[in-house]
Each structure stands twice: as C-alpha cells, then as structure tokens.
C-alpha cells in the first residue's frame, strides 16, 4: 500500500483514516473471497442458505395456498409423483388438508428467525460478559464464571425443556429458553481469548499511548476476536435450529397453527402408516438447512480460524 503523508487538519485526518480502513477492509474481503473459493462446498451451502432466506421472506409471493387453513376435501393428498397426487399440492397435504410445501416455506421463517435471534442474543450477552470478565477479571469474573459452570451442569435440551415447562410455550419464551444457556459458550470463548490477547504487545502499546480501557477492549482487542466469534456463531446456528425444532416437536415450542418444521413432523407421526409424506418433508427441510449452515460454518472456520480454536 502506498503511504501518503498524514494530513494535519482533523477533518482531513479522519477522512484519511477512514480511507485506510476502507482499503484494508476491501483487501481483507477479497482475500477472504479468494480463500473461500477453495471450499466449493461452503459456497454451495451459502447459496442454499440464501435460498432458504429468500423463501422465508417472499413466502406469500411464491405460494398459492394458505399455510394455516386447509380443507377437509383435500386431506392426505399424496405428493405429485404418486398415484392420486396432483401438481396442485407438490408435496401432498396433511391431516387438515393444508399444502405441505406451503407450510414448509412458511416454516422457514420460524426456524431462521429463532436461529438468528437466539444466536444473536447469545453472542451479545456472551461477548459483553466475556470481554468484561476476561479483561477486568476479579470478582465479576468469578461470579459470571461460576454461573456459567452452573449452567453447564445441565444438558442443553433438558435445560431448554425445563425452562419451557415453567414458562409455557411461545416465541419469546422459546428465545429465552435457548439463550439462557446459549451465551455460555460465547462467554467462554471471548473470555479465554480476552485473557490471551490482553498480554500481547499491541494492547500494551495502546495502554501506553493513553487509550482508555473501553476503547482498548472495543477498538483494539475485539476486532481480533470477532472472527472466532463469527465462526462459532455460524456453527451454533444449526444447533439452535435443531433445538427449536425438537422443542416444537415435543409441543413446547411454536404452537399450532403457526407452521414450524418440528411440530409439522410431530403432527404426521399418527399417520406414518398411511401418509408418510406429512412427517418426512418438513424433516428434510430441517436437514437441508442445518446441513448447509454447518457446511458453511466449517468452510468459514477453515478460512477464518485456521488455528482451529473451535471444535
């Protein structure tokens, strides 16, 4: 990079700094894109994820049927390639005569929303607490770390089921149940990284140059940790989606008639002998999305976090 002499006026100086930052970001991005190209599966996975997102957003535009209202006349229509099936209901209909494909497309909204919000809140809480605990240590660190240890004493799904049992079903409670324990992993990652980074020279340099503690954390250290956090967040997303589907399968998550993949699979359980498609296709939708997210996450990890801090 060619170095231009640093300008003197504060406005020009700020513009100069932003220019540098922008150029660095662009260079990092093209470097990143170049690296990702070595992982074709991850790119395919990204495209698949994008398709799911688009389907979720434009659900009303790409479907013709109502996701919640059916008709008794169209109960248990088989998929179109089977005898008695029609192209009106591509993947068949369920016990209430609702189009399964339509419900799967609408169901993507729940899964994606829960995944993104649950992981987002977990990152926010874990990152904040982890950064503070790892940087300042002391009593705060002890207390939060003990709380984290305590939460680790519960298997994830059992904890979530317990919370849902006490709070009752619903979207907000679902997010609460998933994040109540979900933050712990991000906390542990960020805290550990914080403690390691804190002793490095660039932090010392920032401190000597009179930078405030908050600025050191947010502007110096966090940017170095964010890639690992991002990788972990991606890998956790698939897990959260499976957890939501499991809770909905048990009837503790999203309540009918709102279409959610987990409860759709559950609703087809009573008809396995006669209408296998009711349970099978929503499950395939889960596998497809989670598989894509995990593949993308693995590719991302190989590129962004080659030290393999995250297993």
């Amino acid at each position, binding site marked *: 990079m060619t170095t231009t002499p640093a300008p003197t006026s504060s406005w020009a100086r700020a513009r100069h700094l932003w220019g540098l930052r922008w150029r660095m970001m662009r260079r990092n991005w093209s470097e990143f894109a170049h690296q990702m190209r070595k992982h074709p599966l991850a790119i395919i996975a990204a495209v698949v994820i994008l398709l799911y997102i688009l389907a979720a957003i434009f659900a009303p535009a790409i479907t013709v049927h109502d996701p919640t209202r059916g008709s008794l006349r169209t109960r248990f229509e088989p998929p179109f390639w089977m005898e008695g099936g029609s192209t009106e209901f591509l993947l068949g209909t369920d016990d209430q005569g609702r189009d399964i494909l339509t419900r799967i497309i609408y169901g993507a909204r729940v899964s994606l929303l829960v995944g993104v919000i649950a992981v987002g809140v977990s990152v926010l809480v874990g990152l904040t607490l982890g950064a503070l605990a790892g940087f300042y240590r002391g009593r705060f660190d002890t207390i939060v770390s*003990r709380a984290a*240890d*305590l939460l680790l*004493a*519960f*298997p*994830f*799904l*059992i*904890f979530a*089921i*317990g*919370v*849902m*049992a*006490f709070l*009752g079903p619903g979207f907000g409670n679902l997010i609460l149940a998933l994040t109540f324990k979900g933050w712990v992993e991000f906390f542990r990652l960020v805290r550990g990284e914080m403690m390691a980074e804190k002793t490095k020279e660039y932090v010392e340099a920032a401190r000597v140059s009179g930078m405030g503690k908050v600025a050191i954390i947010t502007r110096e250290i966090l940017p170095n940790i964010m890639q690992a956090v991002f990788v972990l967040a991606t890998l956790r997303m*698939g897990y959260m989606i*499976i957890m939501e*589907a*499991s809770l909905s*399968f*048990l*009837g*503790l998550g999203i309540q009918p008639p709102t279409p959610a993949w*987990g409860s759709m*699979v*559950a609703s*087809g*359980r009573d008809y*396995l*002998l006669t209408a*296998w498609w009711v*349970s*099978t296709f929503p*499950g395939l939708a*889960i*596998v497809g999305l*989670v*598989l894509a997210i*995990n*593949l993308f996450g693995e590719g991302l990890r190989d590129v962004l976090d080659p030290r393999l801090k995250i*297993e």
Partner: protein
Amino acid sequence: MRAIKVLERILATIPIMFGVAIMVFIFMRLTPGDPVDIMMGAGGAVGAGEIEQLRAEFHLDEPIHIQLWYFLRDAARGDLGNSYIKKRPTMELIAERLPATIELALGALFFALIIAFPIGILSAVKQNSWLDRFSMAGAFLGISMPAFWLGIVLILIFSVKLRWLPVQGRISYDVNLQEITGLYVVDSILTRNWPALKDALRHLILPSIALGAAVAAIVARVLRSSMLETLRADYVTLARAKGAPEHRVVLRHALRNALIPTVTVIGLQVGVLLGGNMIVETVFGWPGLGRLVVDAIFNRDFPLVQASVMVYAFTFVIANLIVDILYTYLNPKITL
C-alpha cells in the same frame, strides 16, 4: 497425590449440585400459578380450610428463604416431593422409569461406539480415500439431522415398509420376562429367556440408532482427526522404523494416544444421550424417564418436572466427573 486430586474434584461438584438445586427451586417459584391451585385443578373441589392446610403442609405460608431451606433439606435426603397427579413420591416414579432410560442410553452408546471406532480409525489410516470422504459426509449428515426425524424415517423404512422391526415399546405384550435389574436385555440373559432377549433387542435397535447417530458422528470425527495427528507423531514413525506390524502401529501406538481427546468427547456426549432420550422416547413410545418428564410437563405436574430435571442434571455432573477421573488414568500427564 492422585487420590487427593480426585477427592478435590469430587468435593467441587457439591457446590454445583447445590447451585442446580437452588436454580431449579427458583424456577419453580417463578412459575405462574400457585402450586396448591394447580393441585386443586388436578384433584377436584375442596374446601377453603383444606387449602389452608395444604399451604401449611407444603410450607407455602412461610417466607421464601425458609421454603428454600425446607426444599434443600428434603432434597439432600432424596425427597423431592410428591407428584401432583399420581400422588406418589417423585423419586419412586423416577426410579421405576430409570432402567428403561439407562438401557436405551447404553444401547445408543454401544451403537455409536461400534460405528464410530472402525470409521474413525479407517478414515484416518486411509485419509482422502473414498471411504474417508463417504464416512465423513455421513458423519456430517449425522450431526445435521434431528433425532426425532431420524427416528421417524427409521420407523418408516424398517417397521412400516420392510416390517423387520417393531414400531413402539420395549417388549411385546405376549413375551413374559421376570424383571431383576429392569434392563430387559440383561434380565433376559440372566433368566436364560432367549425369546425375550431376541424380542427386547429387536425393540432396542431403532431407538438406539436414532439416539446414537449424532454421538457416532461426533465421536468418529474427533477420533479421525486425533488419529491423523498421532499417526504423524515421532513415536509412530519410530515404531514403524523398528519394524512393528502396521496393525500394531495403528492400534497400539496411534490409537492409544488418540483415545485421550476421544474419551473427553464421549463424556460430553452423555448430555446428548440424556437430552435426546426425551425426544427419542417420545418417537418410539419408550417407557422411560424422558416420556415421564414430557407427560409431566403437559400435566403441569411441577414436582415431577423439577425432580426429573434435577436427576438429569446430577447424572450429567456425575458423568462428567467420572470422565475427568478416567482421563487422569489415560493420560498421567494431566492433573485435574
């Protein structure tokens, strides 16, 4: 020295268990609705005097910290209250269901390990072969698949379509089995009841696969990557240079050292086996603890939910403790 460390580690679990108990208690009290009201809802009409009496009996008229004290005192004695619905001690109900859950968990673990070990070892030895790629793709699928859906697909294929295996339950109605341990496979072997053994095993196969698949996938991946590492270690090169036969190099030198991270991961999977059993027991109508909890949740039988969650958490903590202790024997360099 090691004995002291182990003892320290055991003592360290006590505050965790206390914390678990307190947390469960707090959740109970946060629940909307008064326990006595819920009980009344389940038990029918009663007079106001009786309600007061029940409130006193459950110490609900005392301040919250006194209630916590009573709760912890009773919990330490193994008394976690009575089920609202079944009017029996929760621990009794849990004890009845526990063998079924243990049998399923062991079945799943067994399935996971007999799948994961050959795959993990062979994929590492033949890295980048079609076998390696195929198994790792399979492992990836195993991680991305929800257990309940895998269970349903297994039922569709092996029970509905092929009619090879039963759909539901632990044992057929027409099979007589004398219960000793409550683990049907063990009981049928102990009583030399071979038809019952065959029947119990047939019932156990599909749920074990559904529950164990994710564990198998994770263990296979970890074993493969740690084998890849140990196969490149100096001591393996040395063993080869000495002319040791290849199977001995792989199994004695490489595998033994690769076991250390693998055992940790297996220990962590206990949580998956415990949590997953609620799902898999629901899918396969397996009469275990998981079913009991799920039913209790829908009946708003809070003492039973509370007791089960505590039993699960304690089991998990103890399992991790055992893994930590095992770990020191596998790797003498590690201190707890």
